[in-house]
């Protein structure tokens, strides 16, 4: 069963992305693309003549995709949460390395920003994992899923996760790493055709990754999981449509400032039963 879900993960992510594009268009008063648009894009990209700058660049991009898929797969199979976060870090590092592997300014800026956003969200993810451990005494995602919903006691960490989501999904106000109007997509600028495909699908996997993290807070309650995911989805899109992109220093200051405060408070609270 897990295997099926792992194979389906990118497709579900694609659908989610499709829904999101429609929702975003509707929030802007537009009709928007069809639901299956991401898949059309995917097929079209497969059909392009392959052009590349250098093999290392493409390879690192593909490795980013594979590693991300592994990270998602590890969540689905229910392994150690902390380990999953680090596999995800590895995936991001592949992306950064691919950005740096071409002699292209925008790609470099994008990769550098990607690194800097990592400074902002990686500590928070680790602290979130710490929160789960403190509450349960284990990192096992499988057990977390079987346990009680933890949103009640970890709501501040959930707040910290909400700060991370726009960064990962490249949404306003924290989309500086992609910043289409400044650096033309950043890391992905040198990819084309079928090679861009991998990065494009990696984006879908990011959706799955963050929403699976959201679901963790719901524990064994399916109802709560659905409510959480849909409300987070709506919230993220509303904020995306109501804010401008902030600069990287602001991004780090805001995320770390608010996120660390929330996490530390919550950890103290959980650790000492306050």
């Amino acid at each position: 069963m897990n295997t099926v879900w792992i194979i389906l993960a990118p497709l579900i992510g694609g659908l989610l992305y499709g829904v999101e594009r429609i929702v975003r268009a509707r929030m802007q008063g537009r009709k928007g693309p069809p639901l299956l648009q991401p898949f059309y894009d995917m097929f079209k990209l497969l059909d392009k003549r392959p052009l590349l700058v250098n093999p290392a660049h493409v390879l690192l991009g593909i490795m980013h995709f594979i590693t991300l898929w592994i990270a998602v797969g590890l969540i689905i199979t229910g392994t150690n949460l902390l380990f999953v976060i680090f596999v995800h870090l590895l995936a991001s590092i592949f992306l950064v390395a691919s950005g740096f592997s071409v002699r292209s300014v925008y790609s470099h800026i994008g990769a550098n920003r990607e690194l800097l956003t990592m400074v902002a969200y990686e500590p928070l993810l680790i602290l979130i994992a710490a929160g789960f451990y403190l509450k349960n005494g284990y990192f096992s995602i499988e057990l977390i899923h079987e346990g009680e919903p933890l949103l009640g006691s970890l709501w501040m960490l959930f707040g910290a996760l909400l700060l991370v989501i726009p960064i990962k999904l490249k949404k306003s106000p924290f989309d500086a790493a992609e910043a289409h109007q400044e650096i033309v997509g950043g890391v992905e600028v040198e990819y084309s055709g079928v090679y861009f495909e991998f990065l494009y699908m990696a984006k879908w996997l990011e959706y799955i990754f963050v929403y699976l993290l959201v679901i963790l807070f719901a524990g064994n309650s399916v109802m709560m999981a659905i409510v959480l995911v849909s409300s987070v989805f709506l919230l993220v899109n509303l904020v995306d449509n109501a804010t401008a992109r902030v600069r990287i220093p602001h991004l780090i200051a805001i995320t770390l400032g608010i996120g660390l405060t929330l996490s530390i408070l919550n950890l103290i609270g959980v650790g000492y039963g306050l």
Partner: protein
Amino acid sequence: MWYSVKKAFTNLLSPPQTIDYPATPIKRVERYRGLIEYGEEHCIYCLKCEKACPPGAILFTHTDTPTENPKNKKSLAYDYNPHLCIYCGECVRACPKPNEALWQSEKKPGIGVKEDRVNERWFEVEGRKGS
């Protein structure tokens, strides 16, 4: 920010502003400055429009098979390039018989494809004119 959030939310629930063109046509305003149209039978071949046209989108070139208009003494043929026209209407204002010989319609110009040779053909026309 809250205004935008509210706006985004209400937009989500209300129908979009989008006109589903080409499925539903866009209503064009009256007196839209569209294609220049030519009524050969009323033309007096004064060539004022050719002179007035800023980009030179109207050219009268010599032809071997002239029309039966008696005014066409030099056996000229009217040639018009909608892909060169800037739709300013100067030609119509210059025309002594507007609405009969030359008028600006409300039709939108057609899309050209490679086979139409819109540019190369016009270089040929200009070449004929020059020689």
